[in-house]
């Protein structure tokens, strides 16, 4: 189903962003990148859980569980944007 491919693509893109940002943090030591990476990890988890919810564990409703990593990640990024930029 098309939606499964979409969720996989979203998770993969998110993970790529997280990896690039962590590599960037090792080179520049800018903490903003660490918080940004956390956000993309959260988005990746959100998409993976969405995938699991719709195709693997179809009898349970993970809609509350799967939004939590996205909220955690977005909060981390927002924290970084507020405190780690001049």
């Amino acid at each position, binding site marked *: 189903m098309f939606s499964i491919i979409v969720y996989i693509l979203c998770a993969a893109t998110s993970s790529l962003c997280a990896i690039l940002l962590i590599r960037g943090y090792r080179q520049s030591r800018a903490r903003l990148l660490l918080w940004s990476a956390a956000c993309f990890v959260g988005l990746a988890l959100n*998409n993976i859980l969405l995938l699991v919810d719709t195709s693997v564990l179809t009898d349970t409703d993970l809609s509350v569980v799967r939004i939590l990593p996205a909220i955690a990640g977005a909060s981390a990024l927002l924290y970084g944007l507020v405190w780690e930029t001049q």
Partner: protein
Amino acid sequence: MSGLLSGVLFTLYVVIALFFLRFWTTSRDRLFAMFSAAFGLLATQRLAIALTQDLLEQQAPLYLLRLAAFVVIVIAIVDKNRR
């Protein structure tokens, strides 16, 4: 509960998109404009999900908005590497 959480996530995405918009105006780096658009799309999708919560059958095409957000991010990365 899930309505509240959706609202929280929507707001977070909107504020993040605004920050990226500001970075674009100060740095003139296209990447930030695209990331702003991506988070704007994620916010729109989150709002749409919350508004159509009771109409489950119609929620399926909303993942296209999510796809669009990540496609924009991929385009941003490709664009950054072609310059």
